[in-house]
């Protein structure tokens, strides 16, 4: 099997979007199909060599960063077996995918298809793939490995809810296909391949009571076997083909920027939207996001038609025929809360522009941090919805403390959140190592509060190789015993711990 040495042009494969960890590797492979992945993994297993899987490189927790050994770059996994060619005009990439329509509409896509390409495909056929992560150049397999979500999970749930089948290659190089059938696992996790049966111990560590959680394998008695491979950071196998469920495209979507004069007004608006969903009363927004004044300033600097509001709430709503009633609802809520300024994107292009402005926030923050020679430092915490206000207030306190201690001309932190899911991204902007250390302390302080509130420390980004103050991030949520349990689960399928080693729990470096 052909490979290349990891020379300069592959250097980006040694890190990811966040860039907090730089890895090393000797070889890089670009397999184009499942049997090639099998071949590489078998050879690596027989030779005791670590293999790290690399997706689109948009991750922010170091999951794809190799700790020696080989890289399997999934970039060329653009075709599924028996698929039909389809070219994504936006990227110019030709994929092969398989569409099947019966009771449900399902689309089988290759690992390297981007979420944006999937959305483009769906749009062309009047279909709709609801999960809508902010970063859409990510590969779908990366989304599955990290159970990504993004803002529309408010109404439609997370990636897991839309995955119908997976073609996986096990760490020892055997192919398996997992299909969502409705059969719950109960208290046993048994994976069968052609030659082996894996009996994986059942997790007994702390499971948060949040709507989103990707901190470690997230399995309970109601899960199906396929769920073991979703959101577990690729620890149990390489995801090669993914069957997703699509629905009919909603007739219309609007994206509203709602400018609020106080944080309390914004939080009240969020809670009104959540009430609709929790009580299943229409209109239920697709997504509800909260953006703080510092993050609004980033948008304002790009487009001054966006006012420097104290808080911005972004609401997406879909319609079929009920547009008038739905808009009346929002209008009356805005009136009641004294909200006057809104900007409503109605056409596809306008909505894309709003999304572009929204995506500027993490992009600008990441670039600022890099310009200080530091790496991204943001929370991915979520709490049960009833504690949303508390966590926002704690986040603001932590941010203000940080800004006051060091003094900032520019912003020292920014916070935005997938508010409907009580999921906050509090990002610090440390300019040097001293500030970095302090910001980490503040994050750990906040993290302890999050766990006290039955929350999760990783709602959507995955934990990869993230550490806090010298310990793997997951330690703070499930302790040494929990980490040990995940390790036991992993070693059943990967006795030498070679595949994606270092994710979730640390390994000895060579």
């Amino acid at each position, binding site marked *: 099997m052909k490979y290349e040495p990891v020379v300069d*042009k592959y250097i980006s494969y040694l890190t990811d979007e966040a860039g907090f960890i730089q890895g090393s590797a000797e070889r890089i492979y670009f397999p184009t199909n499942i049997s090639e992945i099998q071949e590489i993994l078998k050879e690596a297993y027989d030779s005791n060599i670590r293999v790290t899987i690399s997706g689109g490189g948009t991750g922010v927790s170091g999951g794809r960063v190799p700790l020696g050994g080989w890289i399997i770059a999934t970039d060329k996994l653009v075709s599924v077996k028996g698929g039909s060619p389809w070219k994504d005009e936006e990227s110019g990439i030709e994929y092969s995918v398989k569409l099947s329509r019966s009771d449900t509409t399902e689309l089988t896509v290759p690992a390297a298809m981007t979420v944006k390409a999937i959305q483009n495909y769906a749009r*062309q*056929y*009047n279909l709709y793939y609801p999960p809508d992560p902010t970063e859409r150049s990510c590969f779908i397999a990366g989304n599955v490995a990290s159970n990504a979500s993004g803002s529309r999970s408010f109404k439609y749930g997370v990636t897991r809810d839309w995955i119908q089948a997976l073609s996986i290659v096990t760490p020892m190089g055997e192919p398996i296909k997992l299909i969502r059938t409705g059969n719950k696992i109960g208290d046993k996790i048994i994976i069968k391949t052609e030659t082996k049966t894996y009996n994986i111990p059942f997790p007994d560590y702390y499971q948060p009571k949040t709507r989103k959680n990707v901190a470690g394998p997230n399995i309970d008695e109601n899960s199906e076997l396929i769920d073991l491979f979703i959101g577990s950071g690729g620890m149990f196998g390489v995801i090669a083909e993914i069957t997703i469920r699509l629905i009919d495209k909603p007739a219309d979507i609007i994206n*509203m920027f709602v400018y609020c004069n106080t944080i309390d007004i914004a939080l009240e608006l969020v809670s009104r939207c959540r009430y609709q969903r929790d009580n299943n009363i229409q209109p239920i927004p697709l997504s509800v996001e909260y953006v703080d004044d510092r993050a609004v300033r980033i948008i304002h600097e790009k487009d001054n038609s966006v006012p420097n509001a104290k808080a911005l709430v972004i609401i997406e709503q879909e319609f079929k025929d009920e547009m008038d009633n739905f808009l009346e609802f929002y209008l009356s809520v805005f009136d009641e809360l004294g909200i006057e300024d809104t900007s*409503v994107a*109605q*056409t596809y292009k306008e909505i894309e522009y709003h999304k572009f402005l929204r995506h500027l926030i993490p992009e600008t923050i990441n670039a600022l941090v890099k310009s200080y020679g530091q790496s991204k430092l943001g929370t991915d915490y979520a709490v049960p919805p009833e504690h949303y206000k508390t966590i926002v207030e704690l986040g603001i306190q932590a941010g203000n403390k940080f800004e006051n201690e060091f003094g900032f001309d520019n912003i020292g932190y920014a916070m935005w959140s997938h508010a409907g899911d009580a999921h906050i991204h509090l990002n610090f902007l440390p300019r040097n190592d001293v500030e970095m250390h302090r910001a980490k302390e503040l994050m750990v302080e906040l993290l302890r509060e999050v766990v006290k509130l039955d929350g999760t420390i990783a709602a959507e980004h995955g934990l990869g190789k993230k550490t806090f103050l010298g310990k793997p991030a997951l330690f703070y949520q499930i302790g040494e015993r929990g980490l040990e349990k995940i390790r036991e689960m992993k070693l059943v399928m990967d006795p030498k711990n070679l595949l994606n080693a270092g994710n979730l729990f640390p390994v000895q470096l060579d």
Partner: protein
Amino acid sequence: MKVVTLLKVTPDTETKFQINSAGTDIAEDSSIEYIIGPYDEYGVEAAIQIKEKLGGEVISVTIGSGNEEKSIRKAMAMGVDSGILINNADLKSSDPLSIAKAIKEVVEPLNADIIICGKLATDTSDSFIGPALAALMNIPVISEISSLEVTEEGVVATRDAAGRKERFESKFPVILTADKGLNEPRYPKLPMIMKAKKKPLDKKDTAGTEIRKNVTQVKAEFPATKSAGKKITGTPDELVSELVTGLTTKEKIL
């Protein structure tokens, strides 16, 4: 100040078209999103800004074939006060001169001070209607404007021509065609979207003018696809050597 804005509704420029089964035109299916023609939208925004500055009203005029009301309502949410829609598929697919004559029939009685439209219709790529209407109505036209100042006395507008900026002045009435850069069309506020639903939209089947179709579109096809380019990566030295090799051996340019 009375401003008329000519508003053509066109498929979103990013629409992926299919050709209809007869092979004569694009297929009108539900995957097409109809929008206010992008240049006409600059005209709508300009018209609203004039009204905000000097008072008066803005009326939109549209020749359509059934896909237009949503976009007209959006223009109303931006600030257009009322609209006239001539719904006639034969007229819409007739020749541009017939369309200009129909618009004249509708617009002339309105006695507008300013008539503004986009410099170009993005679906048919014609820049005809504004200047043709000016000729038919025998009033001045300033085309492709990228800035505009309006006072009680008249308009001052500039056009970005090749390598220079041209400045024009005119009294009323005048026809203006809008270029990119004239303004940034606003996004409506929610209450305006609600109000827009109740604004008057006068729908008619005909402008009462003769419809001629001197030219018939007989075929539509996609342009031949170019073979994909090759992306080269590597260190500067590798790039140069690969580029030179490609240009000499493959493209035979060097």
